[in-house]
């Protein structure tokens, strides 16, 4: 940076612009050729900003996502369920750490990103602003929320940015394990007493629509999509991913003997992944209440305040621990120097 100040800006600027255009073209060629961009490679500032935002938001989602399930670890109904739920929440913490590390390769520190989360500046997935009210929510979250996350994340394993793509490969393996665990909880409830089955249906009623919203606004309204597609960060549109999710969801719901809370759900014949009575096509959902989605994003979901407040409280109450660890490390370093 300082050395650039030595050259005359008037003559340097056009040369730099030309150089920049060449770099940008070369960058896009590499992306088009499906090459992975690595941390030290040249990349457009906007690409860096977009990825930093997306990866850190993803990391925040993992961390905030620990809370709704953490809410049931102490009340899990069997020791096996308790252990698997605790392990799942651990996995999510690991995903968060892994993703913060991937985001850090783009230049921002984990502390800065985490501060953005605590201050409310950074966003995280809208889904975690809904409450977990019964044990069945542990089934519904694993089945639906982790299921939706997988739909979103499998294409990200081929994201043009290498560190993010590699993080996603590891994360996706664990997410599909979570999804199976969640579904298994639902199976147990649906084979159980009428009360348990009602609990499962109630959870599905509450999580279905918010999960459809997880894929983001419909394709016409999405602001970041076009550029992200050119950069091969995004491989499928929001609506395409939502469709894949729904096509997988309907037969799973039928197997459970549950009903999706969607009066307008229908099967449309045509080219499609889903099948019904041997015919190909797609399941179509009813209209999504996007106003609810916007309200949750704006901070007005049922649990927005609690989620952030919980993380702020933990951060504040842990300050003395972090300070002590830093002070101890400093003392140790000093002693080593003296020795």
């Amino acid at each position, binding site marked *: 940076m300082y050395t650039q100040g030595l050259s005359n800006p008037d003559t340097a600027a056009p040369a730099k612009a030309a150089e920049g255009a060449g770099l940008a073209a070369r960058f896009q060629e590499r992306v088009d050729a499906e090459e992975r961009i690595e941390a030290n490679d040249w990349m457009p500032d906007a690409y860096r900003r977009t990825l930093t935002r997306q990866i850190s938001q993803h990391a925040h989602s993992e*961390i905030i996502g*620990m*809370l709704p399930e*953490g809410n049931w*670890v*102490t*009340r*899990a*109904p*069997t*020791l*096996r*369920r*308790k*252990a698997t739920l*605790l*392990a799942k*929440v*651990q996995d999510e*913490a*690991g995903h*968060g*750490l892994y993703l913060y590390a991937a985001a850090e390769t783009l230049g921002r520190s984990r502390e800065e990103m985490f501060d953005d989360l605590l201050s409310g500046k950074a966003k995280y997935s809208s889904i975690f602003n809904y409450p977990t009210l019964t*044990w069945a929510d542990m089934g519904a979250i694993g089945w639906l929320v982790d299921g939706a996350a997988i739909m979103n994340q499998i294409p990200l394993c081929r994201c043009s940015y290498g560190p993010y793509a590699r993080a996603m490969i590891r994360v996706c393996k664990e997410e599909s394990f979570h999804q199976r665990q969640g579904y298994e*909880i639902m199976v*147990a*409830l649906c*084979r*159980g*007493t009428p*009360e*348990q089955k009602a609990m499962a249906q109630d959870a599905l009623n509450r999580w279905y629509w918010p999960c459809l919203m997880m894929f983001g606004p419909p394709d016409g309204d999405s602001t970041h999509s076009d550029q992200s597609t050119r950069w091969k960060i995004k491989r499928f549109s929001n609506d395409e991913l939502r469709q894949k999710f729904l096509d997988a969801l309907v037969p799973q719901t039928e197997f459970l003997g549950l009903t999706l809370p969607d009066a307008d759900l229908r099967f449309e014949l045509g080219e499609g992944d889903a099948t019904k009575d041997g015919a190909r096509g797609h399941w179509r959902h009813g209209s999504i209440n996007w106003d609810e989605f916007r309200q949750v994003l704006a901070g007005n979901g049922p649990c927005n305040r609690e989620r952030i407040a*919980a*993380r702020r*409280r*933990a*951060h504040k*109450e*842990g*300050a*003395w*621990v*972090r*300070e*002590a*660890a830093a*002070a*101890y490390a400093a*003392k140790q370093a000093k002693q080593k120097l003296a020795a």
Partner: protein
Amino acid sequence: MATTSIQVNETPLVLYLLRRADDALILGHRLSEWIGLGPILEEEMALGNIGLDLIGQARSLYAYAAEAEAAGNDEDTFAYLRDAPQYRNLLLAEQPNGDFGQTMVRQLFYSAFADPYWRAMTASGDATLAAVAAKSEKESAYHLRHSSEWVIRLGDGTQESHARVQEAVDVLWPYTGEMFECDAAERTLADGRTVIDPAPLRDAWDGTIGAVLSRATLTLPQNGWMQSGGRTGRHSEHLGHLLSTMQHVQRTYPGAAW
């Protein structure tokens, strides 16, 4: 009625297994309460990992207790359908988390015992117990290392952390004596070489704790009075609240499978 607590035929072996399983479950449950509350993410994960190890140990021990009792109980009826007076865990294990320092001191006190205890138990004449011990010993060694490091860091960190962790040592100290008790029931098992008498482990424990506290610039409490009663079901007020949370779903939907 499915809502009532189970009755357990506490032969010396069953009683022994429930005691050790309850220690691990109750302490593991306490650690699981840290989710979302940790001072740093790495520590939230570490506490969860230790909790998972302990819950795993509890499950192995309950499974053996079920087999030994042969009365149709299983790990879940033991965990979810006994009321506080039927629980046999150490008072130490049920003490509240307090702040992070208190949680780490509680872990240190327990793990400094569990580590040599399970190592010695690998020589048990009972093959099942020896196998549980072999696994628990490895896990306890990590728990001990992790909690020691934190107690040292906090004790020799800032003025505030020193004061907090010294307070935790003082508060928890009276619950450490119970670990070394050996009643008549356990004595018969020790005589048969199924289990070991924990009393002789006291010296090793004192040595470990003394070394950690000294590196942490902390002092041992002068008061030697020790609380006990957990092994016979006389608990502190805290256990009932823990169980009311833990057992809530099982007790609300009696007889349901999950």
